[in-house]
């Protein structure tokens, strides 16, 4: 017997005019961040201003997608759309070029998880228009 009742799917991010370049890059499996050209400090999530100056003088740069784990939490009560994935692990990732991104950690052996562990970005096709970033061990 098949069960017709399906859990809702995870939400699809809705780009704004500010964030569109990041999502366009994501569709080519590339991770783009805004940077302050002076200090080379990145910022995530995309803002309408450069946080270092308060002006719109940021620039988009591609980053390697490599980083290390700053912290993680194993989620037992799922977010909307994540019931089929529970329990899942959310990782707070310090990117190699600076900046911090929180995303699902996948393909990971839970026992091997360590703070500072090397990870790299990978992509989940969430819809026809959107790739969502995830991270996996960089082995």
């Amino acid at each position: 017997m098949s069960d017709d009742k399906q859990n809702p799917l995870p939400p699809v991010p809705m780009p704004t005019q500010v964030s569109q370049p990041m999502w366009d890059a994501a569709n080519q499996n590339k991770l783009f961040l805004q940077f302050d050209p002076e200090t080379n400090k990145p910022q995530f999530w995309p803002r309408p201003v450069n946080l270092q100056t308060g002006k719109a003088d940021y620039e988009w740069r591609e980053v390697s997608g490599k980083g290390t784990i700053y912290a993680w939490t194993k989620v037992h009560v799922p977010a909307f759309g994540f019931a089929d994935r529970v329990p899942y692990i959310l990782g707070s990732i310090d990117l190699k070029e600076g900046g911090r991104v929180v995303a699902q950690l996948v393909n990971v052996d839970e026992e091997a998880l360590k703070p500072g562990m090397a990870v790299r970005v990978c992509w989940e096709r969430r819809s026809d228009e959107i790739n969502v970033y995830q991270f996996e061990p960089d082995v």
Partner: protein
Amino acid sequence: MVDNFLSDKPVAIIAYGEVQNQRRSGKRPYEFAADVMGQLLERTGLKNSDIDGMATHMPTAEAGNTFYTNTMADNLGLQPRWTQLTDIGGCSPMGNIARAAAAIITEQCEVAICLASDSTGTTGVGHRRLGGYRQEFMEPMGFQGPPVAFGLLSHAYDQKYGLDLNALGQLAVTQRNGALVNENAIEQFRKPITVQDYLDSRVIAEPIRLLDCVMRCDGGSGLLITSTKRAKSMGFKNLVYPVAYSEITNFEPSDPNPDITETGFATVGPDVFGKAGMGPDDIDMFHPYDDFLIAVMLQMEQIGFCNRGEGGDFILSTDMSPNGKFPVNTGGGQISAGQPGLGGGGVNLTEAIRQLMGEANGRQVEKAQNALVTGIGVIPYFRNWGSSNCMILEGS
């Protein structure tokens, strides 16, 4: 000496009101505000027409009402000459005292009502639109809610200092004991718990357990504030004075890789002490905003009651009951009395005022002359919380 517009006690709280927190009342914030105002008028003998200032906060239940101030005034029959709508989460109720004080001192109004009421237990949070980063960069990645943010924060703290779950459990028990004698605590929480109950409670986002978290509910609180001169001329004797205040919003926006165990309390804690000319040892009671137990511990460390990383030891070695050396959230805090939505900051605040007026039946802190009260607002993008505020209150 730090400039402090409250140092000469120019304003005084003359009355407080609070309704019992309820799980799902079916009521709206206006009904709770009406109940609270009724208590304030009853206590003071004033009429609603004597109130010429009104401060509110944006309640979750009315998210989307872009005329909340007008709607509230019309529900209550008020005709204020000064209004204020504050939306910095759990910092709002106390932030409104500082804002009302400034309005009274600058003669924009004489008697202000500060209201905190919400019915998030009834409406839930699904209808609100937070915009920006939450819906684009958090929820689609699996952000389930505040327990996830506090799970990451707890993990970061554990790596840096070591997290003692027994200490958090001890804090849970101490606060629950307060709720047992607080008739405004939510009914479901008026039964004792043990440290083992805390440790055994369901894990939401590791290491955050169910008994680490507040439960959203319905309820409300409020107060009347006026100039000290006017309060005395009207014959009010049981006064509570705000004597120092400090607030910060959007802590550390430009650091791309912040230490998320650090909070705005590292700024506003020392600042409020400087303004009051006091130190941690001078504080008789601590009423910290408690959305999660670890938030209480972090505040103890960063405001300066103990050193960073020593919060667990401090909790385990200190009697934090009303009879103890360092009473904390004597009415149960929000974790054991309930969080009436974005009016939740009023729970800790009202308890402090009640104590300083000597009316905390069954849990009165003897000889308490002052209290430090705090607020916390907003989960930003996986940094620490966004807003922090501290106020020192003194009794008369």
